[in-house]
Each structure stands twice: as structure tokens, then as C-alpha cells.
């Protein structure tokens, strides 16, 4: 094989990557600028908050309760080998608030809300509704992207707060009714191990994840091309990229918040 072919292929892939990153960065700056400058659309912000927050509650709640339950069960299996069962409330409260609450809620919301955003905005793009917005003197960034970003950043922490409570409850239920823990001792241990800092770090993560979900949902929808197939591809990309970015940023956020 010609070595130049190899080089040009590598370069091509690299250039594509840089183009995509640049485009997303520009979109992000634009979106942020328009999300915080008037005119605002309170009606749309509330509508998005309901769609992201309220309608995600069943999914996030179910995820949280089963995660808390399995967490208690699994750590019991491990910890009973060296008689450290009493650490279960600690493990549950720490894992849920710091890690599993925000990440699992983020992933579930990415699947539910990120996909819906990409599909809705993508359809608006291919049916010229976004062009129509512009001709009606309305900035699509302010009208479509801004409310979704605001709703994503504010609703995810609230969802995660609820998920934390439900997750810890799940752990409590399994520990008390299946593993035979004393309910009072379990609750006291949970409360003693509970740290506001852990909770806060989880909520900061949640806000970042909410931003990522809304941003990628809007970005992929806004840039979708070519009819139904394009919208389908945009939806998939929105969910996949948001999920990956949630997991990547989770590591770096943990490092950042842990080192403090």
C-alpha cells in the first residue's frame, strides 16, 4: 500500500474529527449566549421542564429503586465474606449519591429526552419549520435551544435528588426485609455515613449531564439532513454521543471534585 494513502486517510479522519468538534463548539457558544440573553420564552421553558423533569420521573424512579436494591444485595454477598455487613448502608448511600444516582439518571434521561429533542428539532429542520421560525423574526437558538438547555440544567439535579432518595430506600428495603438488618440501626448508619458533599458532587454532575443531554439533542436535531433517515440518524447519534460524554465527563468530574 502506498504510504501516502495511509497518511491521507489518517489525516482525513483527523480533519473530520476536528471539523465536528469545531462545529459543536461554535454551536455550544451560540446556544449558551442565546440561552442567557433576552427575549426569553417562559412558556416554553416551563413546557420543557415538565417534559424533562416530570415525565422522566417513572423511568428514573424505577431505575433508582432497583439499583439501590441490587447494590445492597451485591455488597452483602461480598462483605459477608469478611464479616463487614455493617458497611452496607455506607456503600449504598455513597454509591448512590456520588455515582449511580447521577450517572444512571443521566443515561436514562439521555435515552428518553435526548432522543425526543433530536427527533423533534430534526423533523422541524427537514420540514423547513426552523427556516420558518427565522422568517417570522424568531431566533431558533432562543426559541428552541435555550429553553431546552435551561430545563436540562435545572431539572436533572432535581431528578437526581429524587433518584437518590428512592435508591437509598431500595437499599433499605432489601437490607431490612430480605437480609434481616435492624431498621433503626440501618437508618442511623445511613444518616451517619451521609455527607452533604457527596450529595453536592452528585448534583453538580447531574447539572453537567443535563447540559450535555440537551445540547447534543439540540445539536444533532438542528444539523440533521435528508428526510426521515437523517432524523433517525440524528436521534441515534444524540443518544450515543450524550451517553458516552456522560460517562467520560463523569470520570473527569469525579477527579475534579474528589481532589478538592
Amino acid at each position, binding site marked *: 500500500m502506498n504510504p501516502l494513502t495511509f497518511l491521507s486517510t489518517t489525516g482525513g479522519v483527523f480533519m473530520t474529527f476536528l471539523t465536528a468538534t469545531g462545529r459543536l463548539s461554535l454551536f455550544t457558544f451560540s446556544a449558551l449566549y442565546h440561552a442567557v440573553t433576552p427575549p426569553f420564552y417562559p412558556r416554553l421553558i416551563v413546557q420543557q421542564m415538565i417534559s424533562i423533569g416530570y415525565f422522566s420521573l417513572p423511568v428514573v424512579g424505577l431505575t433508582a429503586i432497583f439499583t439501590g436494591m441490587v447494590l445492597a444485595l451485591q455488597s452483602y454477598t461480598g462483605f459477608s465474606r469478611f464479616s463487614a455487613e455493617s458497611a452496607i448502608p455506607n456503600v449504598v448511600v455513597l454509591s448512590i449519591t456520588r455515582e449511580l444516582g447521577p450517572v444512571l439518571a443521566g443515561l436514562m434521561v439521555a435515552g428518553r429526552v435526548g432522543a425526543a429533542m433530536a427527533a423533534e428539532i430534526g423533523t422541524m429542520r427537514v420540514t423547513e*419549520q426552523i427556516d*420558518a421560525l427565522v*422568517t417570522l423574526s424568531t431566533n431558533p437558538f432562543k426559541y428552541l435551544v435555550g429553553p431546552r438547555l435551561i430545563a436540562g440544567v435545572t431539572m436533572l439535579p432535581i431528578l437526581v435528588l429524587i433518584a437518590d432518595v428512592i435508591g437509598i430506600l431500595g437499599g433499605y428495603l432489601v437490607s431490612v426485609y430480605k437480609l434481616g438488618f435492624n431498621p433503626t440501626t440501618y437508618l442511623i448508619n445511613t444518616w451517619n455515613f451521609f455527607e452533604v458533599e457527596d450529595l453536592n458532587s452528585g448534583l453538580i454532575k447531574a447539572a453537567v449531564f443535563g447540559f450535555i443531554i440537551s445540547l447534543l439533542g439540540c445539536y444533532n436535531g438542528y444539523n440533521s439532513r435528508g428526510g426521515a433517515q437523517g432524523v433517525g440518524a440524528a436521534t441515534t447519534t444524540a443518544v450515543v454521543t450524550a451517553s458516552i460524554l456522560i460517562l467520560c465527563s463523569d470520570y473527569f468530574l469525579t477527579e475534579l471534585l474528589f481532589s478538592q
Partner: protein
Amino acid sequence: MTDKQNMIEVRGLHKAFGHKKVLTGVDLNVGVGESLVVIGGSGTGKSVLIKNILGLLKPDEGSIMINGEETVGMSAKERLRIMKKFGMLFQGGALFDSLKVWENIAFALIQSLRMPRMEAKDIAMEKLAMVGLDPEVGELEPAELSGGMQKRVGLARAIATQPEIIFFDEPTTGLDPIMGDVINDLIINCVRDLGATALSITHDMASARKIADRIAMIYEGKIIWVGPVADIDNSGNEYVDQFIHGKAEGPIKMAVRG
């Protein structure tokens, strides 16, 4: 036409997408209160032309004057001011399907002119009547309407703010001939009532003959013929002849592969 002031003046407009050159130097004038129809086959750059003038696309090169004001390279703020002079009827209607019909018509009144909702609704209902639809239609969702009704609502939305210039993208495409003619009549009436300037693109010759004062033909990214609608049958241009008679044989070769 020469003594009249131009509302739209396009000079040397170029636009390419990657290596594909779509517009290669378009020159076009539309006088105040005039209705100009641009005809041309699919993929000749009609839509791209109209989107450049509207400011939805950025020209690579050239000048677009609206009412004597250069719009190429305008700031976002000034663009917004110019945009308020425009109304646009999109090919597929492009109605917002999350809003009711009346909210669609009143959209610019509420969002851009900041009019109270009830006041805007009255105007929307008035426009709805102008395009021949019953008041009950105002409370429906766009998805519940037929194609012809969606076009009518789109027209009502385009004229709601009393724009100075109205753009029509294939206004009759996808409609049966009778509904097409109803839309043509509505366009003529609405434009005349508003005293607006109209720029339309179409490949429907019946519609072009009816709504146009002048016709321009676009081919391979350039305007190859312009003239009053009465001259279209003896334009002396073989491209125009082939197009208006819809013949497969002639100087225009249809690209079978895009």
C-alpha cells in the same frame, strides 16, 4: 419598469455547496409592488436563490439590495429588522405542529411584535377568513388539515404581519389543479390587498402565468430570460420554449443522475 424603484435587486449572486456550484452569477430586479415569478426545473437553484434573498443562506459572492439597502454581510440585529419586512410561504407549509392553527398564524405577532395573545388571536382569525377558512379551523392542530388547507394557513401566517415583500416557494406544488387555482387567486388577492412585492418560484406554468407580472427563467445557476408574462410564448429563447411546453427534447438536458 425602468422608471420604477426596485424593491429587490440581486447582482452577481454566487452560491456553491462544496464543489457543487448552484448559483453562478444571478442578476435579478423586482420592482415595488411587482409580482415576479422565477421558473426553472428541479435542481436549478430556485430554492437556493430565494433562501439567499431571505437570508437563510449566506451568499458566497454578490450583492442583494432590499429597498436600496445592502443585506449581504449585515449584522444579526439589522437582519432581524429586514426580516420583519418579509413573509414567506413554504412549499410544505412548514406549520409548527406543536401549535394550534391560530397560534401559527399569530406567531410573529405574539413572539416578535409582542402583541397580547387575545389581540393577536383576533387578527389571526381575520387572516383565516381572508384565506377562506372557517373560524373552527383556528382551534385545530396543523396535522389535522389537508395539504390545501395547510397551504392556506401558511399563506395566512405569511401575511399576518402585513409584510412588504412576500416569497412563495412552489405555492401550488402537490395540490390538485382546482385547489392550485384557489391558492393562485388567494395569492393575487392577498398581494394586491397588501400592495406587497411578491417573488415566487415554481415549475407550474399555469400558476406562473396567473400570478406573475413578469417571469424570469433560471437555468444552470443563471437567469437566462426575463420578460413580461405576455411575452412568454414568443420569448425567442429555445430554453424557455422547451420549458413552458414541457418537452423532453430540446437544449435542456435533464440530469438523470444527480
